[in-house]
């Protein structure tokens, strides 16, 4: 029975993630050859994972938003905002205690969720276009943190804070663990709970969802809160890594988060998506970046390659959607 179940899982998994999995393997092989022997070194691989984990965590929440038919452009500014305010909080309430760090972490999760809720209320309750709402809050968060910090770096005075972001646990950096854990939790949420079912139905056709007695406004609201929560995690991981935050940090995070989701097979039109796909998408972006760095390609060109990959991913998606 157990084996049978496993076999059906494997079969289903393959069918769904076929092309993405193949692309992933091909990319790994290319990277191994091009980057021989450095690419396969544990240190390099760990580094890639660390690099992608910051935007990757947000990408996981973003996947849910995109499935719901929305988008969140404010996540980058929100990360800087939540990170900055959290350091203020830490300096005020726990400048020299471990307890202070724990409290700050909780505070960041709360503040992130609240910021997400702000977006969510405007989208779900007041039925505003997500693109416009989050374009607005993107400016607001960025402007506020620049104001509060006088456009200067916000430094943490707690000497232990930095350990959180730079420590390893069982051979992996803490942010990577966060990425994996959040990924698994959201994967279960998306595929094995009624919320996930409602989310895909709402994203595919809101009318159908409404007529099926689904509380559409709640379903559209929650992904923004969840994304705010993931922003809270990233804000702590990023700011503790450097023990400070610069108010201009984290610009462009929204693009990496959206890119990871799209490469992972999430439909921009909503209704369909995969958390595992987003995780693979984020890692693939990291590998490509790593190859370019090791190959000595100009940093200015790296963004162009990323853009190209996104376009190809959407093109493939569009074509497979068309053949239906």
């Amino acid at each position, binding site marked *: 029975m157990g084996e049978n179940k496993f076999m059906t899982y494997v079969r289903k998994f393959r069918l769904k993630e076929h092309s993405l999995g193949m692309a992933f393997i091909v990319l790994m092989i290319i990277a191994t050859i091009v980057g021989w022997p450095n690419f396969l070194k544990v240190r390099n691989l760990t580094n890639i994972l660390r690099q992608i984990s910051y935007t990757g965590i947000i990408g996981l929440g973003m996947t849910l938003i995109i499935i719901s038919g929305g988008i969140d452009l404010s996540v980058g500014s929100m990360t800087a905002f939540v990170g900055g305010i959290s350091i203020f909080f830490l300096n005020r309430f726990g400048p020299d205690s471990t307890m202070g760090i724990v409290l700050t972490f909780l505070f960041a999760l709360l503040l992130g969720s609240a910021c997400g809720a702000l977006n969510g209320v405007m989208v779900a309750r007041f039925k505003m276009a997500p693109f416009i709402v989050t374009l607005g809050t993107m400016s607001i968060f960025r402007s506020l943190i620049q104001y509060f910090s006088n456009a200067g770096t916000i430094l943490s005075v707690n000497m232990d804070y930095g350990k959180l972001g730079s420590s390893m646990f069982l051979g992996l950096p803490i942010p990577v663990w966060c990425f994996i854990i959040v990924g698994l939790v959201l994967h*279960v949420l998306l595929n*094995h*709970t009624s919320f996930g*079912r409602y989310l*895909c*139905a709402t994203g*595919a056709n809101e009318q159908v969802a*409404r*007529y099926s007695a689904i509380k559409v406004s709640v379903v559209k609201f929650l992904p923004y809160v969840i994304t705010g929560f993931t922003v809270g995690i990233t804000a702590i991981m990023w700011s503790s890594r450097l023990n400070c935050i610069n108010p201009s940090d984290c610009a462009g995070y929204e693009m990496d988060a959206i890119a990871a989701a799209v490469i992972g097979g999430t439909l921009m039109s909503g209704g*369909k998506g995969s958390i595992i796909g987003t995780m693979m998408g984020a890692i693939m972006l990291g590998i490509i970046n790593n190859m370019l760095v090791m190959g000595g390609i100009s940093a200015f060109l790296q963004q162009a390659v990323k853009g190209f990959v996104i376009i190809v991913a959407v093109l493939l998606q569009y074509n497979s959607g068309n053949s239906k």
Partner: protein
Amino acid sequence: MDETPNILELEGIVKEFSSVRVLDRVSMSIRQGEIMGLIGENGAGKSTLIKIVTGIYQKTEGTVRLDGKQVNIPDYITAKGLGIGIVPQEFNLINYLTVYENIFLGNERNRGIFLDKSAMRGEARAQLAALKMPLDVDKAVSDLSVAEKQMVEIAKAMVLDARILIFDEPTTTLTAVEVQHLFALMRKLKEQGVTMIFISHKLGEVLSICDRVTVLRDGILVSVDPVADLDTTIMARKMVGRDFSQVFPEKVDSSGKPPILEVENLSCPVLLKDVSFTLRKGEILGFAGLVGAGRTETMEAVMGLRKIEGGTIRLDGKEVRIHHPREAVDHGLAYISEDRQGKGIVMDYDIPKNISLISLKEKYKKRGLIDKAKEAESSEHYIKEFNIVAASKRAALRFFSGGNQQKVYLARWMDTKPRILILDEPTRGIDINAKREIYEFIHRLAEDGISCIIISSEMEEVIGMCDRVYVMREGRIAGCLVKEQVTEENIVFNATGIQKGMKQDG
């Protein structure tokens, strides 16, 4: 008879989709100026045949001759050029554009590099006048009724001087009165020498408008007969391929039963005014009226899908307030929308996911997660009960026929264990066999004490199924017909308001 020359001849048409033969050597000819009926069950090959004639599909084998000359129709533009037009089932109109802009869409008149709007307006007006269609050419299409949109589609085909006009189930979304208008228009076109092909599921309509009728079954041509040799029974038998005893089951008598749902003076802004009706336990209640008379809106208000301005709803004598469909479901109400694909099923979900969508939290939860084994088991049960034909139950519903989609939709609501089932146009766009299955199912429900409301624009359906029928007009209840009062005449009179002195019944 044979003096009239054939305008369109099809010979040995074969169409295969990845080696599945959906049309098998179909040969038929259509005479100049006749109206040819084309009937058959869903999947019989009507649409495929039409799509080959209009260049949307390419035939695998066979020849098409127009005026005796062999023609090749590689795309729809070529078909239009040859004078073949189609009034599609799903309208291809752009809502934001006006009537004349839609009529000339893709065929604009130019003056230099600019659009010649006045010429287009004038031509559109002339075309509409020639067809006796009272339409303002500057009106936006989004403001038109379904019947008016159809007129625009007809005019759109006619500005191209269509000689052969194909109507693909044109009456599905029309009311009885609008159908009569359409038929008058078709007769006028016939006088002008236009040849027409009329596809419909409604056999009575086919008999009244067509000269000859072609029957397809499973991709094979069964017969071509003049209407004089046909009646609905013969046609049904030819379509199904066996004797077709009775479509409607015997009526359920519920006159002595207690009321379960009482609606009093229900009002919604603009749409509904003082709507009152009573539904008895185990009753099959009919709601008739023209499209837009407020039948759908009434039920949506009851289900909590619309804001109510005033009025009371009582269930089992107790007043209830319903603000959200969820509350309606909790009270045992179920509503199957007329818009199956727009408001009903999730096209990308498979059968189990579609069936469990509403009852997910109540029935399929185990430790906070979805119990997928139970979900599969339950859908297995419904596939058997409703005789749902699916290649794979894991396939998305977009690959299913209309009848099977409707059954899945029905199964989803049955899974909520409703006490009151409201069916809005439950048999729209599905074939006779599936129709009969649904009628029988409703009948079984009523016998088990579940109350049903059927909203239908197909009069025979209401007459065949219901003992009591409310007729709505312009957002109000125009009358309630009981037993022998339930006739086509009475319904039409109440729906259009031409009748006086009808007995009222609460």
